[in-house]
């Protein structure tokens, strides 16, 4: 069952990824991306990272995609189709990506990964919560705080860009 689910999601991810980067309708591409993200979230579920899956769904699928869609609507017409990619450019890009993929996959497969650990994983909210705020080993309080600065700075940045300047 899990196998089947995995392959379904994996297939979804790959297919929709490809569609995302090839679809000539930009809005559709955004929707395909949404599917990819959802499928990824499903994979997280399968791997028992429920919290992460939830975050993925809310933040990514819910937040980012909406943001993207809004911006798409802001900058182009829904019906607008993108020009097809020039063949040369596509070919070169494909060659580079394919080479990269081949290289990476080959290297990955030739690496002797350790035995799969049989240990159960504890992804309870309690653990996640305490580690997120922990400041000893295995605590993530520092990145958590820092990322808040990042968010704040990002927000300010967006504001000063988005604001109309005074005349």
């Amino acid at each position, binding site marked *: 069952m899990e196998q089947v689910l995995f392959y379904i999601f994996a297939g979804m991810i790959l297919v929709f990824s490809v569609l995302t980067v090839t679809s000539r309708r930009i809005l559709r591409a955004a929707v395909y991306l949404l599917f990819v993200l959802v499928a990824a979230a499903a994979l997280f579920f399968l791997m028992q990272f429920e919290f992460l899956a939830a975050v993925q769904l809310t933040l990514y699928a819910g937040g980012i995609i909406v943001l993207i869609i809004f911006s798409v609507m802001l900058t182009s017409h829904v019906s607008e189709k993108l020009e097809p990619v020039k063949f040369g450019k596509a070919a070169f890009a494909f060659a580079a990506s394919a080479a990269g993929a081949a290289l990476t996959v080959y290297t990955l497969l030739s690496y002797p990964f350790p035995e799969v650990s049989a240990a159960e994983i504890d992804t309870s909210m309690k653990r996640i919560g305490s580690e997120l705020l922990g400041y000893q080993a295995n605590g993530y*309080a520092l990145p958590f705080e820092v990322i808040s600065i*990042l968010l704040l700075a990002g927000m300010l940045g967006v504001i000063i860009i988005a604001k109309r300047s005074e005349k």
Partner: protein
Amino acid sequence: MTLDQFLIMRHELLIIIAAVLIVIVELMNSDEHKERVIPFAVMVFLAVTVAGFLPIDTGILFGGMYRTDEITIMMKNALNIGVFIIFLQSAAWLKKHKGTFRSYGAFYFIMLASLTGMQYLISSGDFLMFFIGTELATIPIAALVAMEKARERSGEAGVKLILSAALSSGITLFGISLLYGSSGSIFFSDIARSFAADDLQILALLFVFAGIAFKISIVPFHLWTADVYEGAPVSVTSYLSVISKGAAVFILVFLLYKVFYTVPGIWMNVLYAVSVLTMTIGNLFAIRQQNLKRFLAFSSIAQAGFVLLGIICGTQLGFASVVYFLLIYVFSQLGAFGVVAAISNASGKENIDDYNGLYRTNPKMSLVMMLSLFSLAGIPPVAGFFAKFFLFIAAAREGYYILLLIAVANVTVSLYYYLLVVKAMFINESDDPIAKIENDFYTKAGLAVCTAGILAIGFFGTLFDYINSISYGVK
């Protein structure tokens, strides 16, 4: 967690406090008086910078996510000084663009947040902090780059920066994920322990390297540099070219020396190749530039190539020379940018041709510019000479003579284009030179600090000796 432990993180904490204070002060002032923020920000940050020099403990916090040692603190102080100079130099620009900014506080906050990012980056003890530090250093800055809304180039630069930064951080992250997968930890110390030089790990290492190389603008990851530098407001450009580059170089050295020290053969060879490329291509492009910001961008790329010379050594002296170089580079590059900024603010001119006859109208600025350029070119008696010389000594001690020959050939080429600017200012005559510019106090102070740094640092042997005593090599 005690207060003492917190004090280890003093630099970052102070900066954040300063940033918040600045925003609060701005909120307390009405729109008409928002210039008042500027002196406040400068003063507060001066205090922060000075405080950075006070004696401080070193150690590890957050289970190893955060660590400091003397050289890290040294580097942080250098970055603080750099940002302080940038604050001084940006005052005029901020005043001029009063309309663009609803709030100066945002500018300062973003700048300081980014600086915090750098400092966390160079203090990072694991890849998570490394990653967040990098992003914190970059993403808000992209907003600043794109800030001059009146200029199309500003927006273009912003787009180029953030998208290519995103790609590069994607590549880095991929590398980090593989490192994590192969070593079981995101902590530097753990990775160092289990790094076995398998193909996958090397691939991962190089992916991570690509991300840092992007920040340092090493060829072939440099292409964004010139466009972004040109498009961004001058103060932001100087920030990018000095602070962010410095921090990235530092963390690169740290990673190579402390984490990947088991495979020096690999990264030394890679660095050798990219160093040659970086110097050469940076110089070849710099020759043909007209826009000074673009010109300085390429020159800074070439400078990065020289820095690699020190890194390749893998020795304590190499590291020390790199840090010393960066320290001096802060002053020289900011000196040059300070002049460019002042002139750009006053006259909007940024091309080399516009500088014709500058010495007749603005002798002092021309002198500062000349000294800065000489320092960048490595001409005695200004500090840059010492910096470059030490890098070369370090490389020579490891026997990289061929690389040195390439490097010195590049130094000569670089001298050519630096002299072109000097020529424009001092030799060329112009019917319409840039009029005499009355600089405000901040600009003057900024240039004075740079000049003092350029002139004085080289002569103090103790400074280098101190840096050397706190550096380390691969062993």
